[in-house]
């Protein structure tokens, strides 16, 4: 059992997906999917525990030795990623019940949960595998599932958003595949570790450089790095509430992980520094923080507002990668985790509002804070965390990001990080003002607080936002180890 842990984590949701698809309508698909998601979270926690105490897990699929067979090589980075994905799933899936019942046609419910499980399986697969082509396979599994999930949204625009994402996502995946092919042509291997051993000899080749560029752009598309983010606001806005929660908290994070792996594990540390990749990441990150935050301020749809905020937050992560230092990468990993917590909590709270009033436009939520005090509380705390107020997880992220920037003497980046927080004050403030200080409308008077089934998962994440603002042994501890692994291995 212990030995197969890492494989089970991917295989269980993959097998559960078709099973759920053929289950009868009603609440059974939800129950099975939720059970699987919780199981995965437990397995992921066990895996991280095992990696932290017994060292890297190496698992050869089907007993085929690497580099011929597919190898799972689980170190702190993989285990941390897998835990983020699985833990968010374990909170989002139970939340889905009521929200999905209301937003998704009844006959599609089993398929919906099936797609959610496929997506989970794909994301976990990307985090687990040590094979660069296998990453592509799982990337496609998760992406195809998410195109389907987004298209299930209530409004008709969901279809065009899903289509837009499909096009952009496919371009991204194709670029990635082209890059992998080019590098494979020079190294003859697909195993990341093996590739890392061979690559230093062929780095001077233009083919390898071209492959690197293709892979980077491909991932940047999946990651929604500014200015390649255009698919993201629509996708997040029109997807069903719970899909937004799940994708916002996990999908882009996994893409960040891919980028870290390729930059620091597969390619030697020095290679990235010799290309303009780092500078580009810093510039794109800074531009993303400012432009996307300003966009967020002017949105009238709350989900879109938060979506633009996500693009800005991805900018912070790109900055951390761009610094290419241990503290920078650690800051990115910390923010990865913390941002999953805050955006998860916020999108869940917005989902609760949609559940009650069927809309999340600014003009429809006036005065709702008084009618839905718990949901409102969740938005306040999630928002404060997004701003980075001390006592919340977001503050820890900012602390490490700024320190990483100071270490580089990067004054402009420092200023941009702090300025981004100020812009967040503006858009979070706008949201809170609409919810609490705008006069109560006739309709919002009769609105009731969201049901417990939505509130409990939301508040689980809200409390996590505060908890990880005070106890950082998990986040900072693991992130620093993970950064050491990433940068150490590639020396």
């Amino acid at each position: 059992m212990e030995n197969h842990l890492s494989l089970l984590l991917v295989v269980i949701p993959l097998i559960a997906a078709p099973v759920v698809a053929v289950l009868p309508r009603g609440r059974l698909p939800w129950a099975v999917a939720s059970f699987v998601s919780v199981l995965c979270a437990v397995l992921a926690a066990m895996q991280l525990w095992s990696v932290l105490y017994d060292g890297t897990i190496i698992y050869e699929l089907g007993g085929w030795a690497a580099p011929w067979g597919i190898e799972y090589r689980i170190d702190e980075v993989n285990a941390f990623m897998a835990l983020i994905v699985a833990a968010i799933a374990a909170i989002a899936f139970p939340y889905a019940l009521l929200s999905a019942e209301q937003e998704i046609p009844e006959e599609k419910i089993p398929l919906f949960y099936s797609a959610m499980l496929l997506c989970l399986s794909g994301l976990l697969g990307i985090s687990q595998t040590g094979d660069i082509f296998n990453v592509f396979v799982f990337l496609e599994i998760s992406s195809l599932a998410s195109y389907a999930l987004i298209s299930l949204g209530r409004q008709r625009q969901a279809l065009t958003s899903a289509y837009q994402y499909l096009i952009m996502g496919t371009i991204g995946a194709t670029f990635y595949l082209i890059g992998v092919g080019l590098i494979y042509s020079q190294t003859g291997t697909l195993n990341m570790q093996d590739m890392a051993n061979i690559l230093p000899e062929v780095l001077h080749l233009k083919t390898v450089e071209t492959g690197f560029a293709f892979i980077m752009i491909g991932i940047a598309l999946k990651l929604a790095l500014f200015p390649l983010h255009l698919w993201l606001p629509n996708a997040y806005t029109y997807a069903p509430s719970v899909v937004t929660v799940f994708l916002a908290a996990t999908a882009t994070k996994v893409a960040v992980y891919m980028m870290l792996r390729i930059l620091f594990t597969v390619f030697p540390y020095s290679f990235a520094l010799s290309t303009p990749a780092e500078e580009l990441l810093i510039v794109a990150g800074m531009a993303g923080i400012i432009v996307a935050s300003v966009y967020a301020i002017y949105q009238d749809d709350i989900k879109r507002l938060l979506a633009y905020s996500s693009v800005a937050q991805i900018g912070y992560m790109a900055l951390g990668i761009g610094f290419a230092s241990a503290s920078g990468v650690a800051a990115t990993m910390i923010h990865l985790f913390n941002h999953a917590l805050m955006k998860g909590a916020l999108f869940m709270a917005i989902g609760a509002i949609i559940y009650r009033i069927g809309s999340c436009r600014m003009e429809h939520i006036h005065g709702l804070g008084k009618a839905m005090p718990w949901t409102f509380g969740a938005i306040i705390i999630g928002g404060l965390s997004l701003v980075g107020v001390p006592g919340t997880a977001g503050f820890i992220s900012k602390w490490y990001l700024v320190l990483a920037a100071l270490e580089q003497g990067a004054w402009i980046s420092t200023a941009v990080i702090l300025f981004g927080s100020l812009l967040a004050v503006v858009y979070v403030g706008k949201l809170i003002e609409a919810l609490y200080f705008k006069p109560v409308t006739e309709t919002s008077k009769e609105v009731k607080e969201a049901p417990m089934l939505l509130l409990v998962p939301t508040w689980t994440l809200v409390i996590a936002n505060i908890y990880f603002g005070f106890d950082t042994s998990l986040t900072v501890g693991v992130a620093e180890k993970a950064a050491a692994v990433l940068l150490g291995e590639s020396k």
Partner: protein
Amino acid sequence: MSAEVLLSITLLLPLLGAIGIVITRRSPDVREGVTLVTSTLIAVLVLVIATRFMEGETFAFTLIEPLPGVTIAFEIEALGMLFALVAGLLWVVTSIYAIGYMRGHHEKNQTRFYAAFAVSISATMGIAFSANLFTLFLFYELLTLATYPLVAHAGNAEAKKGGRVYLGILLGTSIGLFLLAILITWFLTGSVDFQEGGILSGHIDPAWAGLLYALFLFGIGKAAVMPFHRWLPAAMVAPTPVSALLHAVAVVKAGVFTLLKVTIYIFGSDFILSNDITGGLIWIVAATILIASMVAMTKDNLKARLAYSTISQLSYIALGALLASKAGLIGASMHIVMHAFAKITLFFAAGAIFVASHKKLVSELNGLGRAMPITFTAFLIGTLSIIGLPPFGGMWSKWYLGLGAVETAQLLLLAVLMISSLLNIMYLLPIPMRAFFSKPKNGEHYTEIAEAPRPMLLAMVITSSACIILFFYPDPFYRLAGLAAGGF
């Protein structure tokens, strides 16, 4: 009780009070009872702690360590003790006043008001007792957030606008500049602890230290040094008890208190003096003193005039901090106390006038003194204390600030202090004079206006008497100020 327990209770009690206030919201009498009991207990607690502190007991404990080397820790030293005493003692008085005001004025959302008030006090205590910059920053931000609902209390367009400016400037400066300064300090020294003699000396080039000090000076927006002072007049839309305790005492004093802490325990006065770190910045502070006084003269709205007066007086304290000499620091610490008692009296009076007569403008006050003699006598005492005349407490702090300017041979600064005292006379004294000696316009007689409700009068009498008592017995505060400045 052990020192640690005593300290924790002082921090937690107002929060428990806030919960109690929310629970008892259905019965206003019980709710106000909770406020009074909590605030009285806090006053007793700070007095007990102060007594034991003066006897040489140490109060310190670490709560948790969120980041390696960065802790949430509390420790009492002289300056924090002084600030906690002022805030703790004045909260009781303000609570009595607030009950009279809120009921007399039929305010809405009173539960939210009292609860947010209690949380603000808890944050203030946290600031006073923090052992490092990180802990201080945590409570600093909590204080901003907890006072926001109080500023936006009325909920109308003006209150919302005021709240936006308030939050924007305070959060903006604290995140954009103050946090950056803390991070740079941490980056350079690997510590954010408040230490005797400072931690920066030897870790930073004195030429850059001035820049870092500027980040602190402007980042601590609560100190309202120009050009980041706009939030204070904006906060005046809040109900008067809020303006009185929070925007004349707790919040603004938290700002200058933080500045003093940074000066004494992060930079160290020797480091500042020997390298002339604050030489240029001191003129910005001096300019704030004068400009704010001049703006105050142009304001006809009573609370706005008092707000600008506060900005000017806060810069006195900042000036003392920037002088960094012993007398300057003593004067600055003493001014935290003296200005608190005097300004809160003025705000109490302004609120009483508003509740009793619904008048907000200085020009409407002619002849009102006969109808409200107690209120305007209190106002007069507060005025004289702010101007710095004997026999009122305000004289002592101005005395030491002046001495500080002389000590560092900054005679031009001494002139600034003198001119400012004259300006104080020009914009504050006419207010009680009009009330007592001018005739109401168009021959009206105020027969229907009487004094404000009793709780409000009681509060004013207490604080205005304190202004006089502090002239004769400044000793406890003087000793604390002396200790903070590094002994006598």
